């Protein structure tokens, strides 16, 4: 029999599920991998399962998805009108340390928003956190596109492009980390040895 399948892919399918258990599917994938399928095939199947289940969940619960997407606007209001406008009212130049703290605060706010979306949506949390993250990206993309066009015309806008790119990445990562914080196991993703122990324990039970 071949070595254990990619542990991260298996962990992904086990923990980021969409309201249904994927045990049978994971069992099928492990069985096929043991018969000689490649790691690329295994990952392709896991990604396909993730995308298919995500689409199905959004179609099944459109109102929940709309609510998750709409909650972006409340965060936007809080960020743009309450915090950012207050900061802009300060006439003194801010030292870099404050700017860094502000960045950390922003990441924390998005992580908190992701966590709240996950808590509100219970068993649908994977889908709704993703919908929330995608909505935020769609909301920020026009600004990013504009800066990209400006940078292509004049390279002096390069730092702004880098800044907006980092903003997109940090925002997405913060939302996903906050939203899926309860999905992460106490320890790291299971290793091949841990999967072997799991299999042996099943044998002892029978």
């Amino acid at each position, binding site marked *: 029999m071949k070595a254990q399948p990619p542990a991260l892919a298996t962990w992904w399918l086990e923990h980021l599920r969409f309201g249904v258990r994927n045990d049978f599917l*994971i069992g099928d994938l492990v*069985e096929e991998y043991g018969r000689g399928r490649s790691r690329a095939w295994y990952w392709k199947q896991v990604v396909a*399962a993730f995308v*298919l*289940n995500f689409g199905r969940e959004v179609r099944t619960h459109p109102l929940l998805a709309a609510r998750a997407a709409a909650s972006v606007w409340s965060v936007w209001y809080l960020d743009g009108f309450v915090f950012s406008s207050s900061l802009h009212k300060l006439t003194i130049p801010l030292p870099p340390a404050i700017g860094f703290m502000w960045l950390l605060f922003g990441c924390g706010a998005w992580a908190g928003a992701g966590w709240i979306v996950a808590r509100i949506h219970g068993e649908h949390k994977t889908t709704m956190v993703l919908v929330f993250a995608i909505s935020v990206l769609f909301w920020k993309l026009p600004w990013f596109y504009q800066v990209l066009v400006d940078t292509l015309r004049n390279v002096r806008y390069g730092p702004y492009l880098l800044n907006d790119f980092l903003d997109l990445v940090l925002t997405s990562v913060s939302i996903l980390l906050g939203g899926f914080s309860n999905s992460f196991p106490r320890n790291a993703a299971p290793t091949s040895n841990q999967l072997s122990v799991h299999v042996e324990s099943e*044998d002892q039970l029978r």
Partner: protein
Amino acid sequence: MPKRSYLGNFELIVMLALIRLGENAYGVPIAQEIEAKGGREVSLAGIYATLDRLETKGLVSSELGEPTRERGGRAKRYFQVTPRGLHEVRQTQQALKRLWQDLPQLQGKTV
């Protein structure tokens, strides 16, 4: 004329694979059967999504098997076609047959 919904393309393929396999129908053999006879690569998740839909319609039923070592201690989910499902496949077959008849474009040599 009464309104009725025929099986979709992939639903029909999955149903035919289930009928061919008989009692040993779970994710892996179903995918192999479709790949071998249907000549198309399929994702296991796509098969399970279709089977879940068919089960909701009452056209297939499923039951759990024993967990095995080669599957990392996870059980198989066996599927079988219900009498209603078999009836639905026959209905779809009849409808396709009727549609197939008297089409000169589909007779003779292939394109």
